[in-house]
C-alpha cells in the first residue's frame, strides 16, 4: 500500500472508529480499541461516552492511555467509580451499547482467545488472560473486535475460548443464555468481517483499498467466505487522518513511546 498516503494500521483504526456512532455508550479495551474510540470522539462522535474498566465514565483523555488506569482518564471523566461498580451497575446493569475489544486470536464465529496458545496446563505461550472481556463480550448490546489479520491470529479452532462470540455458530450463543447481541464487526488491517445473519460465520464484507481478496484469504486460517456484495472500504478522510496522527504524536510525546497498551 506504499502508493497510498495512509498505512494499513491507520485505515484499520479509522474504519473501526467510523463504526462508533455519536452518543453511543462504549466500554473500551486498551490499545487499538481505545485508539479507535478516541478517534471517533475527536471526529464524528463528540458525544460518545467512553467507559474504561478501571472506573472512569465519560473519559475524554487528551492523549491515548498507556495503561487502563492512567491518571488522564480519571481527570477527564464525568465521574470515576470503583471497578466493582463498573462491572455490576454499568455493564451487568445493561447500560453498554458497544463493547470495543482487541484479541490475540479469533475464530470463524468471532470467539476470542486471550488466555493461552497450546494446552492450558502446559501452555506454549501464556497470554495475559481474560481481563474484562468475557462479560463485556457477553453483556454489551453489540461488540466490535479490532486486531491485525494473520493466520496466527485468525485460526480455525481456538486453543481456548476466553470470551464468547457466536460459540459454534447459528443460535448457539442465544441457547447458552448470553444476553448481549455479540460481535457485529471484526475490523482488521486488511478489511472488515461481519457475521452471517444465520450461520454467524465471519464473512468478508469489505476489503481496504489496495488489498486483494486473495491476500485476506491468505491471512485467514480457515476457508474464508466472501460476501457477494463485497465492498471496498472508503479511504480515510483527511480530517480523520489528521486527527489520528495528531493524537498519536501527542501520545508519543507524553509517553515517550508508542501507544500500544494493556490492562493492568
Amino acid at each position, binding site marked *: 500500500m506504499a502508493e497510498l498516503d495512509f498505512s494499513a494500521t491507520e485505515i484499520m483504526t479509522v474504519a473501526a472508529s467510523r463504526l462508533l456512532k455519536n452518543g453511543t455508550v462504549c466500554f473500551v479495551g486498551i490499545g487499538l480499541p481505545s485508539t479507535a474510540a478516541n478517534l471517533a470522539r475527536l471526529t464524528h462522535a463528540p458525544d460518545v461516552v467512553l467507559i474504561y474498566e478501571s472506573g472512569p465514565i465519560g473519559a475524554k483523555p487528551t492523549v491515548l492511555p498507556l495503561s*487502563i488506569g492512567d491518571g488522564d*482518564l480519571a481527570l477527564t471523566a464525568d465521574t470515576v467509580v*470503583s471497578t466493582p461498580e463498573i462491572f455490576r451497575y454499568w455493564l451487568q446493569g445493561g447500560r453498554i451499547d458497544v463493547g470495543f475489544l482487541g484479541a490475540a486470536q479469533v475464530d470463524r464465529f468471532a470467539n476470542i482467545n486471550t488466555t493461552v496458545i497450546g494446552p492450558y496446563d502446559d501452555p506454549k505461550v501464556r497470554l495475559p488472560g481474560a*481481563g474484562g472481556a468475557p462479560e463485556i463480550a457477553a453483556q454489551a448490546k453489540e461488540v466490535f473486535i479490532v486486531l491485525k489479520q494473520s493466520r496466527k491470529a485468525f485460526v480455525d479452532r481456538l486453543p481456548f475460548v476466553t470470551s464468547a462470540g457466536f460459540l459454534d455458530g447459528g443460535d448457539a450463543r442465544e441457547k447458552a*443464555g448470553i444476553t448481549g447481541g455479540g460481535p457485529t464487526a471484526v475490523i482488521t488491517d486488511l478489511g472488515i468481517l461481519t457475521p452471517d445473519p444465520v450461520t454467524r460465520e465471519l464473512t468478508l464484507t469489505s476489503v481496504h483499498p489496495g488489498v486483494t481478496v486473495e491476500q485476506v484469504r491468505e491471512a485467514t486460517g480457515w476457508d474464508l467466505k466472501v460476501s457477494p456484495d463485497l465492498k471496498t472500504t472508503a479511504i480515510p478522510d483527511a480530517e480523520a487522518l489528521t486527527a489520528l496522527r495528531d493524537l498519536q504524536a501527542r501520545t508519543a510525546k507524553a*509517553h515517550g513511546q508508542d501507544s500500544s497498551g494493556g*490492562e*493492568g
Partner: protein
Amino acid sequence: MALITPLREAVSSLVRDGDTVALEGFTHLIPHAAGHEIVRQARKDLTLVRMTPDLVYDQLIGMGCARKLIFSWGGNPGVGSLHRFRDAVEREWPHRLEIEEHSHAGMANAYVAGASNLPFALLRGYTGSDLPKVNPNIRFVECPFTGEKLAAIPSVRPDVTVIHAQKADRRGNVLLWGILGVQKEAVLAAQRSIVTVEEIVDDLEAPPNACVLPSWALSAVCHVPGGAYPSYAQGYSERDNRFYKDWDPVARSRDGFLAWMKRHVLDTGDFAEFRRVLAETSGPGTARQEGA
C-alpha cells in the same frame, strides 16, 4: 485503631508465610514498596490475589514468594508479557505456581462478596468461556426465584490486604481518590490490612462522600512517600512509563532478574534507599526519576 508504624514492622507482624495476600491497586496506587518489603523479609508459600498482577507480582513470583496466584489479567501494561510470571507458568521457575484464573467481573464481585461476609459471589458471567472448564471454582447456580443460571465463585477473603493511598491523618484514617479499583473492597474483605500513604496530615479535609477508610477498620498505616512507584499517586506523582518498558529486558532473563532484585531490593534497607540506588544505577527507570 490502626497503628502508625514503619513498613518493615507492619510487614513483619502482619504478613506471614502461607498467608493469602492481596496487593491491590488498578494501575494507580499499586503498593510497590510493600511488595519489596515482602521480598526482603523472604515470605514463602503465599497465595497472591490481584486482579492485574503486573510488575509487583512479577517480582514476588520471580523471587519465589508465591505458591498460588488468583488473578484475572497478568501482563506488563502498555509493554507486553510478565516474564517471571510466564516462566513460572510455562517452565515452573523458580518453582511450580498454581493458578486460579477469573475474569475482572468475577474478581471484582469476589472482593465485594468477601467484604460483605458472604461465602460466594453471584454474577452473570463466564457464559460460553472455557474458564469454567479449567477453574473448578467457577460454578453455576440456579436463581431460586426465576430459575436463571448464574455464575458463582468463592469470595476473596485475604488474610492480609495491602494498598497504597494518598493521605492519612494522625489517628490513621485514610483518604484515597482517583482510580480506586477494588481497594476498599479488598481491605474490608481481609482479616488484616496495611495501608502505605504519601503523607500524614492533621486533617484529611475529605468531602462527605470521599473514599475514607476509617482507622478502626485498618491494622497498620505506614508513611511511605512515593511508595507506589513506578505506579503513581494522583496529585503526588506521575506513572513512570519508562520503568515499565525497561522492566521487560530485566525480567526476561533469570540471572538478570535476580541480580537486579539483589542490587535494588535485597541489598537496600527500605524504599527510599531503593529509589536512591535506582537513580544511581543503570536499571529500569533511570532515564526518568523524580518529577518524571
